[in-house]
C-alpha cells in the first residue's frame, strides 16, 4: 500500500473524494509510468495535468527546442526557455508543479531502432507529435509490444483522438499509411488556434487517467472528432480492420520501420 504523507493527502484530496478514483485510484496514479511523445501543443497540457494528478513517472520524448512561435499554444514552456530543449523546459514545468513526479527525458527523434526500448518501460503512451512518421511508428511499436496509447491530431480548429488497448482498433486500422504528399497540410503551414490543442490534450490526459484508474469507458474502437468553430463533437465507431497491416489477421509488418519526412513531404522508406 502507498503511504500518503500529509502533503499528498492535501494535494490529492479531490481525487480521494471521488468515489470512482478514491485512495486506491490515487495509488494507481502515483505508481503509473506514462510516456509522452511530443512536448509541444498536445504534450504540454498532458504533461501538466498528469503531473498535477501525481503520475509517478513521466517520460518525455522530443528533439525540438523551444521557439518563440511555440508559445502561443505550448503552455508547458515559457519565454525564458526559448532556445532550450523542450524536454528540459517541460521537466522544469512539471517539477515546479509537483515534485512527486519523476521525469525521464529523451531529447531525440524516436526512430524504429530506439523506440521499443523506451516504450517498454511505460504503462501507457500519449502520442502528441506533429508528424505522421512518428504517429505510425508509435502505433506500430505499441501494437507490437501490447502497450495501450492515446493518439491525437490537430488541424487548425479541428482535433481528433482515440485510445488503443491491445486488440482494439489501431491507427493503421483507420489510416493505413501516411497521406500522400500534398493532400494534407502538415507541418506548420496550416496554423492552429492555440486553445484547441488544449481541448485535445486535456481529453488525452483524461483518457490516460481513466486507463490508469479503470474509470469509465475509453475511446476504444471509436474516433472522437471535434470542430471548435461549431463545437460539434462526434464519436464514430470504427472496428478493427481484419486486413490491417500490423494488427490484422495476416500482418505484413513484422518489424518496425521509419517513414521519411523531409520538410512537408512524406516518402515511404522501408
Amino acid at each position, binding site marked *: *500500500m502507498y503511504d500518503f504523507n500529509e502533503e499528498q*493527502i492535501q494535494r490529492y484530496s479531490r481525487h480521494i473524494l471521488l468515489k470512482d478514483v*478514491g485512495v486506491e485510484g490515487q495509488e494507481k496514479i502515483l505508481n503509473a509510468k506514462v510516456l509522452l511523445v511530443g512536448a509541444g501543443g498536445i504534450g504540454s497540457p498532458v504533461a501538466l495535468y498528469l503531473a498535477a494528478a501525481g503520475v509517478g513517472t513521466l517520460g518525455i520524448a522530443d528533439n525540438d527546442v523551444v521557439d518563440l512561435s511555440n508559445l502561443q499554444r505550448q503552455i508547458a514552456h515559457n519565454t525564458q526557455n526559448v532556445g532550450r530543449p523542450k524536454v528540459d523546459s517541460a521537466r522544469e514545468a512539471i517539477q515546479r508543479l509537483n515534485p512527486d513526479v519523476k521525469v525521464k527525458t529523451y531529447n531525440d527523434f524516436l526512430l524504429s531502432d530506439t523506440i521499443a526500448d523506451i516504450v517498454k518501460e511505460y504503462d501507457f503512451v500519449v502520442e502528441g507529435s506533429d508528424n505522421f512518421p512518428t504517429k505510425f511508428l508509435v502505433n506500430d511499436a505499441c501494437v507490437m509490444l501490447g502497450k495501450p496509447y492515446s493518439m491525437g491530431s490537430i488541424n487548425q480548429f479541428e482535433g481528433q483522438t482515440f485510445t488503443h488497448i491491445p486488440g482494439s482498433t489501431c491507427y493503421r486500422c483507420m489510416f493505413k499509411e501516411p497521406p500522400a504528399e500534398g493532400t494534407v497540410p502538415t507541418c506548420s503551414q496550416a496554423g492552429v488556434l492555440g486553445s484547441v490543442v488544449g481541448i485535445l490534450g486535456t481529453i488525452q490526459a483524461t483518457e490516460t487517467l481513466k486507463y490508469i484508474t479503470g474509470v469509465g469507458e475509453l475511446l476504444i474502437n471509436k474516433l472522437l472528432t471535434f470542430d471548435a468553430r461549431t463545437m460539434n463533437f462526434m464519436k464514430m465507431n470504427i472496428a478493427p480492420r481484419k486486413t490491417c497491416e500490423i494488427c490484422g489477421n495476416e500482418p505484413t509488418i513484422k518489424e518496425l520501420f521509419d517513414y521519411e519526412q523531409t520538410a512537408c513531404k512524406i516518402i515511404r522508406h522501408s
Partner: protein
Amino acid sequence: MVYTLDITHEHCPMTLVRTKLKLSQMAKGDILEVLLSEGEALNSVPSAIKEQGFNVISVERVEGSTHKMMIEK
C-alpha cells in the same frame, strides 16, 4: 478489527478525505469508529460515506457536540 478516527477538528472536505483514507487501510468487515462534530461534518459525512458504498451502522451522540459514527467496511 475495530479502528478509531477523530475528525472533530477537521473541516469539509478533509473530514471525508480522512475517513476514506482510514477505510482504505482496513480490511473488509473491519469496523471504523469516527468521532465527528455537529454541523457540517455530522450533516454531510455519514450520507457521503453511504453514497461511496460503505455501510454506516450507527451515528449517536457521545457528549456535547461530538458524535460517534460506526462504519463497516
